[in-house]
């Protein structure tokens, strides 16, 4: 194993290695050639040149459109949307062009794109640097949606997107960028898309989560163990479309009690689909309703610190709800 790297470094490494590996790989986005706000693309321009690390005009639709078009002649594009809050101008391209081009041409046109974007709150970003918006894309057949929570998964999943044949949205939670570190193998590795992972074994109840929710859930699980002797299993979805139904139902059948934890707003958040799916497929295994522990139904998220705190999930908030679940 190499040395411990941060989440953002893992992403940066993945791109460096894949740029080396595939001469057709390029990246297009705003403010990337200098490394970007979070240094995700640090060193790429210096090493691979500005014809492969391309600063785009301030125009999210054509970032996606140009990448998609370029993929039709065999290029391998990464489109960076600086913040997922600014993905809305590209909605038309993503939903109508990217997601449907393969389908509407009966597979004769084969778009391939990795759309990297950063998301999530709790970093003082306010209403326009804290959004998730992942739910919209989970709804769209033709897209795959990846949302890693650890450096290992971040690196392995990004490589899978870049090497894959489909159209991917890849979410990076800002709060993870420098807060989690992990030793990564020196050797090349990938993480399969569409597979969840049990990140903590447990037997009394299950927490299904992803992204920053994983950190919060693991901390909450520790507290539940320490405080109540309740053993929590924590499942990291890693991919939000397609959902890993098998893994989800597996943990439900094991513990019979399940909570979904995410930062995104409650109504029509990712938890809605997961909860619907579980009760549909494992109704008789449930000893309690599937619980959704999520952000509130207000714009994500107001700036002033007490308002931001109100919005954010944290271990204590999760524990308070899990206590109810355990007692149901």
């Amino acid at each position, binding site marked *: 194993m190499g040395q411990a790297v941060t989440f953002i470094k893992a992403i940066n490494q993945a791109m460096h290695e894949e740029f080396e590996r595939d001469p057709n790989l390029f990246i297009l986005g705003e403010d990337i050639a200098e490394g970007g706000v979070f240094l995700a693309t640090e060193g790429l321009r210096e090493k691979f040149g500005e014809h*492969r690390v391309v600063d785009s005009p301030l125009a999210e639709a*054509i970032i996606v459109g*140009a990448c998609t078009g370029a993929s039709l002649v065999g290029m391998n594009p990464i489109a960076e949307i600086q913040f997922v809050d600014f993905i809305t101008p590209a909605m038309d391209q993503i939903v109508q062009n990217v997601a449907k081009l393969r389908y509407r041409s*009966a*597979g004769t046109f084969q778009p391939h794109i990795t759309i990297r974007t950063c998301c999530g709150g709790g970093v003082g970003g306010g209403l326009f640097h804290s959004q998730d918006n992942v739910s919209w894309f989970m709804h769209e057949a033709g897209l795959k949606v990846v949302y890693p929570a650890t450096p290992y998964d971040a690196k392995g999943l990004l490589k899978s997107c870049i090497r894959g*044949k489909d159209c991917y949205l890849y979410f990076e939670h800002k709060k993870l960028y420098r807060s989690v570190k992990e030793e990564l193998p020196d050797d090349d590795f990938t993480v399969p898309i569409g597979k969840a992972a049990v990140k903590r074994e447990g037997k009394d109840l299950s927490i299904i989560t992803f992204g920053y929710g994983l950190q919060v859930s693991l901390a909450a699980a520790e507290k539940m163990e320490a405080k109540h002797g309740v053993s929590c299993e924590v499942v990291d979805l890693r991919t939000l479309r397609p959902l890993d139904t098998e893994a989800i139902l597996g943990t439900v059948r094991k513990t019979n009690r399940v909570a979904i934890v995410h930062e995104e707003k409650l109504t029509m958040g990712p938890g809605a689909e997961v909860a619907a799916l579980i009760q549909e497929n494992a109704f008789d295994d449930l000893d309690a309703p599937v619980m959704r522990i999520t952000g509130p139904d207000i714009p994500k998220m107001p700036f002033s610190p007490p308002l931001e705190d109100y919005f954010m999930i944290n271990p204590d908030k999760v524990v308070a709800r899990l206590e109810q679940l355990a007692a149901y």
Partner: protein
Amino acid sequence: MATKSNARTATVAKKEARPPRNDKPAAASQPAAVAASASGASVELKKDQLLEMYYLLLKCRQVDERARLLFRQGKFKGNFYSAVGQEATHVGTLYGCRKTDWVGPSHRDMVAAVVKGVPTRRIIAQLYACVESPDRGKSTPAHFGDAEYNIIIPSSTIAAQWQLVTGVAFGLKMQGKDDICFAYCGDGATSTGAWHEATNFAGVHKLGCVYVVQNNLWAESVPLRLQSAAKTLADKAAGYGMPGVVVDGNDLLAVYQVAREAIRRARAGEGPTLIECKTYRWYGHSEIDPAKYRPKEEVEEWKKRDPVPRFEKVLRERGYWSDDWKKKIEAEIKAEIDDAVAFAEKSPYPDPSEATQHVYAEE
């Protein structure tokens, strides 16, 4: 004029008078706003090329008219967007292009495939949403695409093709290839954000794009005066740092000449060109639109500028014309279309199970 700061040689474009910009009858407000035809003077085309161009023009017309007929006969479902009246914009720009050049058609550009050399069977099959269609019935009729001929399958969302084609050109440039990209759109499309972002991007990267705006004065029932206050749509080009040219879109040789220079620039890596073709759709926006919003006089005036007899006149002037030849090719084309229709009618709809195919490349 947008070409001002990007001085070019195309005399045709400069001579072009502007058709009326409001929804008043053209005839009333500005009679005979047809540009002096380029009629070949500066265009060096050999006889067989000119005859081939006429053949293609006629074929576009016949294929399009047959498609309309088939729709009205209830032979296929959905809808159809006729390009009748606008065919010179397709033939003039695409004539002589490479099979490997890319085309991004919009909803009204099915006949671009005719010029690109796609067999008529494939085109008619697309209307019938049958398994012999390149899209196996996934998309609506007239949204013809063909991966074999590098014709991107249109999406209904206006300017989608503009974005994709720009991306293709970006990819080709990164690969150092000199294949180029043609994109087509209407006057309405120029108002979209997608169009703006793509055109601007092509300007920045000097992409090999030939952008063809078919200004037919209407976007559905919306007249040009409510679409844009620009003097010409080509005036937009300067804002993207590219040449903008206005041309009589019903004058085949004029379009051809303007397109040649745009093609030369694109292939040479000198960047994109925006060509505004002043033209007109003879029929409604689609076959279900009676188009009552257009004054009769305007329609009549434009029908007089029909590109087909105008080009016939050129051939006559040069002594290349023969009525027999016309009859012969007309019959040939008709036979080809008849065959295609028979072929499509025999082809079955896809099995329902195909509905779940092609969503992803990897399950």
